[in-house]
């Protein structure tokens, strides 16, 4: 067990290094002259060169990467081209993203699993077909289009909710719905699939036959067994959401990390983009690590050796 934990931790560290390397390399390759960008359209050539020197943009790639790692080890993500520390910018944009990701994720789980459970319990063709259609539409519809439509109907036409921005519970409703659309469909299908299998098992049939009330059977016996595998999936999905809310944030003008990244992309603010990409990827690596470490505790049937898969 200790060996497993150590191995898993070591791998986590390697993954983090890989993530920094990949992120830095991509950011390094961004073309164009960051110094020119900072200097503005009317700047004179020697001023641009001056800025380039100041930012260390004239250094070779590996030197820049080493410097980047060194500063990273000191919790320094560098400065945006606007002069503001990147860590500060990210700290400002992270809470809205976490809020949106968390509410969206809870909706996925709560509504998705309930819907899946309901359909599985009722066991009729119409319900199954409806769920199938729902999950296909959910998987095929562009998130931003859902957002644009919701925005048009509920904010522009009906005026029930504000058109984008943040600051109150009412601002949160439409982005959450947008985010929920695809996720609920996915989790409903997933929960349905797992439950459907469980419900055909003997012990559940027995419990049903004994005349135990339906919800009790579902909650006590079936859900617990069936939903455990969902934990790993839901866990990494939550982490993925930190960087995966790009569209929702863009549509709703939500002041989070995703919109920050897209905005800074057009300005080529490489340090900020690098910071956002790193934070979201690190969240995924760390959460997967936690899941892998915690999962054997939740489900003793999982053989420690086999849990490598979850990396």
């Amino acid at each position, binding site marked *: 067990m200790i060996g497993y934990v150590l191995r898993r931790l070591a*791998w986590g560290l390697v*993954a983090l290094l890989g*993530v920094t390397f*990949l*992120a830095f390399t*991509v*950011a390094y390759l*961004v*073309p164009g002259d960051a110094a020119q960008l900072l200097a503005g359209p009317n700047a004179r050539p020697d001023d641009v060169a001056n800025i380039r020197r100041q930012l260390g943009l004239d250094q070779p790639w590996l030197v820049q990467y080493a410097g980047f790692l060194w500063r990273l080890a000191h919790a320094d993500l560098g400065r945006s081209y606007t002069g503001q520390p990147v860590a500060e910018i990210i700290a400002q944009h992270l809470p809205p993203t976490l809020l949106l990701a968390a509410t969206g994720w809870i909706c996925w789980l709560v509504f998705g699993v309930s819907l899946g459970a309901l359909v599985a319990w009722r066991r009729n063709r119409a319900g*199954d*077909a409806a769920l*199938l259609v729902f999950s*296909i*539409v959910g*998987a*095929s*519809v*562009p*998130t*931003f*289009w859902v957002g*644009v*439509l919701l*925005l*048009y109907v509920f904010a*522009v036409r009906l005026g029930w909710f504000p058109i984008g921005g943040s600051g109150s519970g009412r601002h949160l409703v439409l982005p959450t719905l947008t985010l929920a659309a*695809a*996720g609920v469909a*996915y989790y409903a299908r*997933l929960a349905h*699939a*797992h439950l*459907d*299998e469980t419900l055909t098992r003997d012990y559940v049939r027995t419990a049903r036959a004994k005349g135990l009330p339906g919800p009790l059977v579902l909650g006590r016996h079936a859900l617990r067994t069936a939903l455990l*595998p*969902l934990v*790993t*999936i839901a866990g990494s*999905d939550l982490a993925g959401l*930190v*960087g*995966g809310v*790009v*569209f929702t944030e*863009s549509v709703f003008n939500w002041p989070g990390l995703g919109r920050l*990244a*897209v905005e800074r*992309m057009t300005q*080529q603010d490489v340090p900020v*983009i690098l910071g*956002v*990409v790193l934070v*979201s*990827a690190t969240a*995924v*690596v760390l959460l*997967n690590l936690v899941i892998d470490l915690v999962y054997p505790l939740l489900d003793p049937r999982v053989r420690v050796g086999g849990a490598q*898969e*979850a*990396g």
Partner: protein
Amino acid sequence: MAAQLFSGPMTSRARQPRGAAWLAARPLLATGLLLLCVVVGAAVFAPWLAPHSPLTQARGDAPLPPSTHFPLGTDSLGRDLLSRLLFGARYSLAIGGCATLVALAIGLLVGLPAGYFGGMVDGALMRLVDVVMAFPSILLAVALAAVLPYRNLGTVLLVIGLVNWTTVARVVRGETLALREQAFVEAARALGAGPGRVLLRHIAPHLAPTLLTVASLSAGTAILLDAGLSYLGMGLPQPTPSWGDMLREAQRWYRAAPWLAVWPGVAVLITVGGLNMIAFDLQRRRR
């Protein structure tokens, strides 16, 4: 998000039960193929179906609302929306198809050796997959799009392929791992076939049904990602009639011209929905 939607049941994390109470026969496949045919038809016959050129800009107070002359109205430059939708199918399908080929190529290149050799090779390759998968696909795509000096059809599908290959690699690895233990592979090995020969002659052919499923999923994801990139302003260059770009424009105009926001989204939904239906059906058949 969408990229991972179907990865669940195909990896070992989640198991789909046998005999699930999905629809009985194959109406799903039929519907999917029908939708895909509609889109392919629109793409192929766009020059004959389109009432106008997708580029001609009508003068006047654009965007113009739907009329007999412009059945779905025009965009803010006075271009016919219907014509742009029809020609847009060409680009969407081209990107979906080609990006999938890129993803399949990289995925096979990584997944086959990982599954076949196992051990260190597997460990290293799968760690690479994990690192790439740690990046949310749209963020990675956006970052890659920013790396390119400029964008055209080739670079956009390269970006999407580079983001999309990880799912393919995982599935291929899993299947190869299972096939490796099969009697006929063992036999081939016992007869002295090298790894290259075993992989190509004995394992690869058996991957075909899986690859078909993965390909149709991947094409759907690619089309969604392409629409997304265009929506964020990082897709094909203007004046390409791209569905994502139309939606991007629509959001600016939706108070004055709400009709712009409807049809491009429907087009994406039909195309990706068709591909996903096919994939769903194939996936269920294989179990």
